[in-house]
């Protein structure tokens, strides 16, 4: 069994990228760009935010935690939306790369969620006076973290990777219910966590000198997220190829 036989190659829309050889070629060209842009924007944004941007009138320098916390929080939710999209592609269209991508998105998403929770806690103690409060925002983000962990464990819990991927995709889609809860928790219920400073509809309630570095870090982190997922998916494709080759060789050996 060769690797190219393992992946059927229908020539329609989404499945154009299903050919692992083509995926490796395209992503190999894309990856350096994603990584460079991600590192450069994050570095500039973090340098600006952590040193040059003004201190807040009441938070003082603790406001700088925001430049890590907010991009991590955005990417925690954004990453989950991507996990859900990959799960739909896997369940409905049986896209062969979607399963691999989903399994590689969840550890990255869990990492960003952990950063979000940790930095939020570090900010909460000096500002609010508590490391943690069970309000709707914090609890729903903790649930997001557990969903990521559950997905990581579930896709690896089966001997047959196909069944693991399927169970993981269903879990990921059930968890989508949590995304609007995270977003609107601060509006639907009263919480300790503040509401959104940056919205699509209104002007930001944050000074431009703080907003620009924050947006730079956020865009940089998004590229970084993409680079990590693409690199991990490439590794998974190659791993699957090698496993296929080894299996083929073993079967040849048995036959001989």
């Amino acid at each position, binding site marked *: 069994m060769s690797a190219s036989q393992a992946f059927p190659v229908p020539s329609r829309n989404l499945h154009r990228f299903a050919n692992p050889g083509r995926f490796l070629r395209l992503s190999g060209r894309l990856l350096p760009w994603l990584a460079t842009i991600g590192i450069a924007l994050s570095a500039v944004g973090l340098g600006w935010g952590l040193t040059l941007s*003004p*201190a*807040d*009138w*009441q*938070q003082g320098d603790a*406001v700088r935690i*925001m430049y890590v916390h907010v991009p991590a929080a955005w990417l925690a939710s954004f990453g989950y939306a991507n996990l859900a999209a990959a799960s*739909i592609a896997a*369940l*409905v*269209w*049986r896209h062969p790369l979607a399963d691999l991508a989903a399994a590689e998105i969840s550890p990255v998403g869990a990492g960003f969620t952990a950063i979000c929770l940790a930095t939020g806690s570090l900010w909460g103690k*000096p*500002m*609010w*006076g*508590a490391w943690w*409060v*069970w*309000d*709707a925002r914090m609890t729903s983000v903790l649930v997001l973290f557990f969903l990521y962990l559950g997905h990581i464990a579930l896709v690896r819990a089966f001997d047959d990777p196909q069944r693991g991927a399927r169970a993981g995709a269903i879990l990921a*889609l*059930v968890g*989508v*219910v949590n995304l609007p*809860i995270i977003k609107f928790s601060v509006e*639907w*219920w*009263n*919480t*300790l966590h*503040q*509401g*959104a*400073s940056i919205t699509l509809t209104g*002007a*930001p*309630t*944050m*000074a*431009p*000198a*703080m907003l620009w570095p924050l947006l730079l870090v956020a865009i940089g982190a998004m590229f970084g997220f993409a680079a990590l997922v693409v690199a991990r998916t490439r590794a998974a494709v190659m791993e699957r190829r090698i496993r296929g080759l080894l299996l083929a060789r073993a079967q040849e050996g048995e036959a001989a």
Partner: protein
Amino acid sequence: MTRKRRRLIVLLACGLGLGSAAALTLSAFSDTLELFVPPSRIATDAPHGGRAFRLGGLVEAGSVERVSVAGQPAARFRVTDGGATVSVEYVGILPDLFREGQGVVTLGSLRPDGVFKAQEVLAKHDENYMPKDVADALKKSGNWHPETGAAPPAAALWNDPQTKITKAGS
């Protein structure tokens, strides 16, 4: 109907069912998902009989009285939500962000005399992020009088590049 189409429809139907189930559950439990009870809803929403709950609102301007109880820092202040006001007593260190006009969430219980005995006071931060120099400029230009316990002006006033307030002070 192709199998892909059928799978997509099954998935959408499941999503619709799950979404409405979640929405119904959340709206049914909406009261318990609130972190705190504002003063005007104490009569209806807070537990009775001296049981603990979280009270939340703004610290009323001019109400903070810092005292010392048995050598420990303590404070008396009033929490308001515009409609009703509750007196709060607290022994302990207040968080850095605590001041008049600030949102607070405090855990404790109501005494029979109607005073809220707090065991924990947390300060709430709102969605406004304002640099120190902007705050100074607002005070200098007379657009904000923090000594009266007033909250800072809305972001629209100082965050609009057209307004000259921040420039007037600097």
